């Protein structure tokens, strides 16, 4: 005897288990930016693309969790960030490429142009930053996210992003001034800039 409960009729028996094409299109469009961010995080081009692949797999496996009202790039950067952290936990080697290896890896990627000297130095300086500083700096300066957006990606408060970016700039510049052996920049304004604590 059927009782009063109504069992909802399953009209779609062949349940769609995979990401819809529109979602895949969005992923494809986001790949170049993902690759750029990954390259800046892990330096080595092959490792960077491994990170991108890992990110895409996670995104495809969890596509239902993506809120279409959000910017998919932010979502993907956030996944990449977490995937990178997971990767570091699994394998510390990713983060400790020796500086000469970093320069080598980056040089292999593209011809040098413009201020090649500064760019080489920038690579080495980047490598010396902590991951926290580096990711915040890259999201804001290279990905050109707002502090609020970077905060969303990194899952930290916007104020934390602000101070990490600032500290990253200071650290990078200090290293560049020191390594360049030029006293002009170093002797400049530093004494006037005191952090308000």
């Amino acid at each position, binding site marked *: 005897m*059927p009782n009063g409960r109504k069992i909802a009729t399953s009209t779609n*028996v062949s349940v769609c*288990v995979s990401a819809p094409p529109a979602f895949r299109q969005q992923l494809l469009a986001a*790949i170049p930016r993902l690759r750029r961010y990954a390259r800046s995080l892990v330096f080595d081009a092959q490792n960077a693309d491994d990170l991108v692949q890992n990110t895409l797999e996670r995104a495809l496996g969890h596509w239902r969790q993506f809120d279409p009202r959000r910017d998919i790039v932010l979502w993907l950067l956030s996944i990449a960030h977490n995937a990178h952290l997971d990767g570091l936990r699994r394998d510390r080697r990713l983060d400790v490429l020796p500086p000469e290896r970093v320069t080598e890896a980056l040089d292999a990627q593209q011809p040098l142009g413009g201020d090649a000297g500064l*760019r080489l130095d920038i690579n080495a300086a980047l490598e010396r930053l902590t991951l926290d500083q580096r990711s915040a700096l*890259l999201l*804001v300066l290279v990905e050109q996210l707002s502090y609020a957006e970077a905060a969303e990606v990194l899952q930290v408060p916007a104020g934390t992003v602000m101070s990490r970016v600032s500290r990253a700039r200071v650290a990078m510049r200090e290293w560049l001034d020191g390594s360049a052996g030029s006293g002009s920049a170093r002797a400049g304004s530093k004494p006037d800039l005191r*952090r308000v604590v």
Partner: protein
Amino acid sequence: MSRPDDFSDTDLSAWLDGELDVERHALVEARLREQPELAARARLWAADRDALRARLDPVLGEPVPAGLTNLVWQHREPPRWARAAVAAGLVITGALVGAGGMWQWQGQRSASVIAAAQSATAAGTPSGWVQRAALAHSVYVPEPRHPIEVKAQEEHLSRWLTRRIDIPVKLFDLRDEGFELMGGRLLPDANGKSAQLMYESLDAAAPKQRVTVYLRKPDSGAPTAFSYRQQGELGQFYWVEAGAGYALVGALPKERLLALAQAIYKQQPPPLAASGAAR
């Protein structure tokens, strides 16, 4: 006018990033006019930013490796139930892995029944039909197009299965536990026919999961204890009650599967004889 301690690197950095409010922005610009060395520092930071972009922006223009493009187009979500089916399939062809965890139904069952069931499990028995339930689960749950034979239209499905397997088939409502009935199918069993009901998780945010309930007319003398066993990812609760054998199969954590088993147990129909619905 200038108060050195109300100004920090952070202000200059945020100014470069366009993140300051109007008041603070004006303060930084005033300082930059007053202090040439500060302006020089800002220019260096801006140059560093430009160098970073120049270093990394070319990646945007690189051709995307085919491997990544193919991954996006060809990726199929590996369903949990597919992985479970693989695990179960491997086990089904072999001997039982261990005796499986035995579990006492809220202390309602007597120890002797439990012990009997345990020894049966240890001997690799209870088991024929539970094994068939697991196998049927593994075969039909990963099926994308035809996981069920008859959709969940309560009266028809229930009547059809009841008529075929000769025990009352009730379409358990597991929505409170987050699962919705998809439908059911008729299956061959050692001593006749059995029915399989399939349920799918309702949580849209998580990967879909499916569980099955296998129903059959029990062999006489079959152990009736409420039991649990685990094969790979696949958990199975099974019991015999009121003239029907039940096996709930799913790749879920034991507690979650137990909650479903309890919901089913509470909704179990009375035996045909007791309900007076002799057929």
